[in-house]
């Protein structure tokens, strides 16, 4: 396994684990409050929709765009998406954004589920179905986005999908055994790590993809080839750490 593939697997696994934990919390809150039948139908419908989106988007991207254009377009999207993720992680670590708390999220979802009225459609509790469907679809879309962008760029869609699948299985099995929100998962730290990996690979691939504008349309060469990935990771880590320190000082000075 190359360093690029190892990074891809790590990034997809961690990002997927974080998203699956968030979706699991909402599905669990609906299940224990409103009943499992409608909740599980909602989750299943969300997974089915995700499968269709993945197949259509993946096929369309690979079929319609030449490889170098694909690298530039997908790399740029991944970079923008990843930088937003990293920005949020930096602001969270500096205390400028509230930390994600699964116990709190579970309580809020549970209270909302208890307050909501009962409306039956197609024999299902519609509130539980829709909330569960949306949770799986929205959190899952981020996983699909990362799997497709990483997979297409590294030419390893099956490896990326395997990383996401393993994370999903781990969350599902852990959740089924514990039967409570997975609040002990260090989500905010994981999100920071994922932000760093997305920013690193996004920068690497978006710059490589710029070769599309040259006559040869060959990828732009990084100094050191794939080893530049480690250099980029070091730079993003150092810059993020310094940004957190500087922001914490700003926050303290303002209080």
């Amino acid at each position: 396994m190359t360093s690029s593939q190892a990074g891809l697997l790590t990034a997809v696994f961690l990002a997927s684990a974080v998203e699956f934990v968030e979706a699991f919390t909402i599905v669990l809150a609906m299940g224990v409050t409103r009943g499992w039948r409608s909740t599980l139908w909602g989750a299943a419908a969300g997974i089915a929709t995700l499968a269709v989106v993945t197949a259509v988007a993946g096929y369309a991207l690979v079929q319609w765009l030449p490889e170098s254009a694909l690298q530039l377009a997908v790399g740029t999207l991944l970079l923008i998406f990843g930088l937003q993720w990293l920005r949020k992680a930096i602001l969270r670590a500096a205390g400028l954004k509230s930390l994600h708390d699964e116990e709190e999220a579970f309580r809020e979802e549970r209270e909302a589920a208890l307050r909501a009225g009962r409306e039956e459609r197609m024999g299902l509790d519609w509130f539980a179905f829709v909330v569960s469907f949306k949770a799986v679809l929205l959190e899952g879309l981020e996983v699909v986005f990362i799997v497709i962008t990483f997979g297409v760029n590294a030419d390893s869609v099956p490896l990326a999908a395997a990383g996401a699948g393993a994370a999903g299985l781990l969350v599902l099995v852990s959740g089924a055994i514990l039967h409570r929100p997975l609040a002990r998962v260090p989500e905010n730290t994981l999100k920071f790590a994922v932000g760093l990996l997305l920013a690193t690979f996004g920068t690497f691939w978006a710059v490589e993809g710029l070769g599309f504008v040259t006559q040869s349309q060959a990828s732009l060469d990084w100094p050191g080839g794939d080893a530049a990935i480690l250099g980029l990771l070091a730079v993003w880590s150092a810059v993020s750490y310094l940004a957190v320190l500087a922001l914490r000082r700003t926050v303290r000075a303002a209080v």
Partner: protein
Amino acid sequence: MRYLRAFGRFWFDFIVGEDWRIAAGVVTVLALGALALRAELLSDSLLAVLIATAIVAVVVVSVVGAGYRSANRP
């Protein structure tokens, strides 16, 4: 039309997120990089490093701006 707008809004929020300046900055940096590459102004390696540095600068400006706005909030 309403659904189309909502669909567009969803994908904008999904990819661009809270600070549109990051997306605008990244696209600008990559566009300038593409122009420099076409004009063969610099070696590939140097250009790659310069573009990456500019992308890092875009994020630094965004987070510093967020900190500044937070510190000056009444």
